[in-house]
């Protein structure tokens, strides 16, 4: 599926999102935009509702109000599976591969669901998605047998296999060591260069610092800061709500 939409300025727009869970306000009129070809990072203190926001964007969580626009089309009431086929991929914080499918079958499934291509073409694309995420050596392994980094790669590959325009990443760098985070950054940057945009929720600031064009900080239902990584990470309100105390800032900048 090639991207033939009437080239909207923003590939993805969430407008005026309101979401409450019980008495907790996750979002109280939040706007988030992802321009085509860019990487937008989202940070915020634990419990701010970042994952819930990704759920609203990918379609498995319903917002109380607000609209979600993708490629110029209102997808607010479109189900998760359909959004995936339209080109919104996502990964989950805790990767959960299919226990009994091979690595290859994971991406093949996604290719065949989202693109109508011949069998051999589907096989090629499935392999290509794995190659881009560094999983080529593990094509015949069973998903349930993979270790953490490979599980995370597989989540990425599964999203990439959809031939997506946008991938929502949920803390893919969490639990990885420094070298592994480095590999992940490489993968994301190369995917960005091939035309995929990202909205990346992450606690590992280093990863966002190395990749994001823009960072937003969600806290208490609002975006309390928005701008380049340097701007946002130095923003007093961010330091206050996210890092708690200036003493922790040394690692961030």
């Amino acid at each position, binding site marked *: 599926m090639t991207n033939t939409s009437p080239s909207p300025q923003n590939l993805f727009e969430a407008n005026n999102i309101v979401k409450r869970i019980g008495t907790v306000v996750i979002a109280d009129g939040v706007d988030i935009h992802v321009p085509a070809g860019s990487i937008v990072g989202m940070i915020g203190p634990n419990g701010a509702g970042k994952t819930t926001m990704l759920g609203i964007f*990918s379609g*498995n969580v319903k917002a109380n109000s607000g609209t979600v626009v993708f490629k110029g089309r209102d997808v607010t009431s479109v*189900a*998760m*599976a*359909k959004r*995936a*086929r339209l080109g919104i*991929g*996502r990964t*989950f914080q805790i990767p*959960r*591969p*299919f*226990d*009994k*499918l091979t690595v290859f*079958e*994971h991406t*093949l*499934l*996604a290719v*065949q*669901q*989202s693109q109508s291509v011949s069998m051999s073409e589907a096989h090629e694309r499935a392999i290509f998605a794995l190659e881009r995420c560094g999983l080529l050596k593990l094509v015949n392994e069973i998903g349930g047998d993979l270790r953490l980094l490979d599980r995370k790669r597989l989540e990425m590959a*599964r*999203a990439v*296999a*959809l031939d997506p325009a946008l991938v929502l990443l949920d803390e893919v760098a969490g639990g990885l060591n420094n070298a592994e985070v480095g590999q992940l950054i490489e993968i994301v940057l190369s995917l960005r260069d091939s035309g995929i945009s990202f909205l990346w929720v992450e606690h590992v600031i280093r990863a966002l610092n190395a990749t994001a064009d823009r960072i937003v900080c969600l806290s208490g239902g609002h975006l309390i800061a928005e701008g380049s990584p340097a701007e946002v990470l130095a923003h007093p309100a961010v330091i206050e709500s996210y890092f708690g105390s200036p003493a922790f800032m040394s690692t961030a900048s």
Partner: protein
Amino acid sequence: MVWTNAVVQGLLLGGLYALFSVGLSLMFGVMRFVNLAHGDFSVLAAYAAYVLVEHAGGTPLWTFAAVVPMAAVVGFFLQHFILDRALGAGELSPLLVTFGLSIFIESALQQGFGANNDSLFLGPLSYQSWKITNTLYLGRLEVIVFVVAVALISGLQLFLSRTQPGRLLRATADNPRAAALSGVNPRRVRALATAIALATVAVGGLFLAMRTSFTPTSGSNDLIFAFEAVIIGGLGSLWGTLLGGLILGVAQTVGSQINPADGILAGHLVFLAVLAYRPQGILAARNAAL
């Protein structure tokens, strides 16, 4: 020699049980609930064939072509409009809904056809047999049923492991949310699973009606055999279900050989033994299809 005969007849009967059970196994694998109306759908299929033969005549064999696709369509819509709704309402609801369906189907059939035994008579095919030795005869119909059962289960296993719809079924069985993430509509996949389940149980129901007889309420009894075969073999594994069916069949015929009245009991005892000593079933879930 009587024992050889008992075992061989048991294997042939077991093929039918397996055919009968494979849909139950598939639905459990994909949706994690036991369809308590499973047996009644086989009886429903038998009555549908019965009515078709009454009106259109001919050998009951042609009714496969009509009843099996019909069952698949019924399965698709049953899942789409009723069972999916129940699935959304908690673990217990699908059980209650299918239990209700079971009662409804049995009562409706009793209302329409009375409580008599009926059968689909195939003419000579019903009693002809091949002589192997002086003491071992293989009924033609029994052999045909067995061959169809093994072929159908093998085909279904290949379908699950080699085709895109099969992968969709396995992926949805494993993790519906992750499947949706790959662009899979879980509702459609569940409807496909139930369509296949009802189609296979219709084949089983027609063969059962040709081999023996059926009444409006025989579905509940059939469900117990199907359930036993699935549990003996291992939940969610199609090869396991085939094996479970064969073991149950052999247990029943060997039991009857010991004492003609105790065949069914012997099957139940084997089932109990498996539940007690290997509750995960003989082919454990590691190599299960779903």
